[in-house]
């Protein structure tokens, strides 16, 4: 048991448990349709049971009594620490850029264009400036990808 207590670790474990339970419900439905040991529902049933059982074990037995736990009973603090831990500023930014990138691809803006924008933007953000250098790197990366993929292998790009 490590000393680091991660914010809302129990919360995350609880979420996993819920997922396990949902899977279990689905599996039972499947199993009911064909209740034999070789049915298509047999393995899902077995697996989701494992998830549920072991998640319960983790939740119940891996109990860390630390002061932090007491402090986090205040909902606001709880949310706050989760946000700080998971939703790190830079990570959220890159993630949003990634989503926009995906959207650009979906709307048919073209791979070359979307990727270039994504690369330059994220690099600039992360490196806090140095646009010129980033542009060069972007150019190199794009050139590499385009040459390798399109020309040589004729892979269809997004």
């Amino acid at each position: 048991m490590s000393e680091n207590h991660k914010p809302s670790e129990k919360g995350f474990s609880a979420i996993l448990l819920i997922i396990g339970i949902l899977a279990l419900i689905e599996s039972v439905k499947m199993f009911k349709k064909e209740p034999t040991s070789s049915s298509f529902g047999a393995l899902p049933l077995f697996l989701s049971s494992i998830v549920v059982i072991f998640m319960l074990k983790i939740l119940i037995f891996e109990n860390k009594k630390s002061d932090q736990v007491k402090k986090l009973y205040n909902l606001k603090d709880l949310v706050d620490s989760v946000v700080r831990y998971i939703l790190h500023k830079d990570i959220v930014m890159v993630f949003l850029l990634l989503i926009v990138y995906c959207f650009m691809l979906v709307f048919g803006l073209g791979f070359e264009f979307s990727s270039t924008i994504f690369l330059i933007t994220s690099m600039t953000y992360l490196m806090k400036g140095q646009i010129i250098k980033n542009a060069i790197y972007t150019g190199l990366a794009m050139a590499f990808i385009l040459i390798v993929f399109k020309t040589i292998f004729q892979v269809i790009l997004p």
Partner: protein
Amino acid sequence: MKRLISLLLVLCMTVTVLIGCDNKENNSESIFPARDITGIVQWGAGGGTDSLMRPLSSLAEKILGKSIVIQNKPGATGAIATQYVYEQDADGYTLLMGAENPQLYSMLGISELTYEDFEPVFIIGDEKVGIIVGKDSKYNSFTELIEDALANPGTISMTTTGTGGMPWSVSSFIKAITGATFKQIPFDSDAACLTAVLGGHADFTVAKVQSAIQSYKAGEIKFLTLLSLEEVDVLPEVPLVIEEYPEFKEYLPWGPFYGIFVKDGTSLEAIDVLSNAFIEAFKDESYQELLRGFNVTPLGLTGEEAKAYLLDWKRNTADAFYKSGAIDKSPEELGIK
């Protein structure tokens, strides 16, 4: 300052996205084909279906003047590819290239679609299948196998490729006609079914002539019978099933078939152009030789003939499935007869 620049870039991106949304142009095509065509194959690369479609397409490309880009979308016995093509526009630029399985989808609850939702562009050919056993098997004829199965229902083991696959379908035929039932062990592919019999892990399987002929020539397996009305030239010594069970005549000819389809509603001109291109490609001697090498019976059907073939096939199969209890709705109820 630098953060500001990056924020501005993000804004630019977002604006571009919004503008890009409205920018989908529609090409107005006058002559078909005005651009490259996509062929979606129901099965994996290197498989039987794929190996027939790729060469034919390379030949047809030359006649059409545009490329046919082949993509494999295997899964769900071809239902994935079928669904995908159905979701595209009915403009003739997306072709469905597959085998016989879609005809069974609605019966078996795999999908709502069947080939009725598509127009046949070209049916390449079909194959004969037969019953094979290992070389040390105690069975020397199909009759022996059936008698044993009737005496011990559900114990003789056969390998299949799962519900809706070819061996499974044949087992339904057998049950409908003789009443024999077997223990069915599912595998991933025809090749795996054969391997299992070779390894002594199952009593028999149903194999295409193509898949089994090499092992047969090497003496590794015995061909008990062939599901065919006439003698198969590469296997003249193997008895035909109608010799032992004439009732099979009702269901033959039957076999896996391969064809190219487009979504229902595609313009007749487009279908015509495609059909003609494939007919020409088909006639090419190199392709005919390929078909011979694959032991595929060339059919080369288009239009109404193709539709008649498809309907016949579906009807025979549905009939047998209903009689054997594989499906509970009769062909009439399914709207097939």
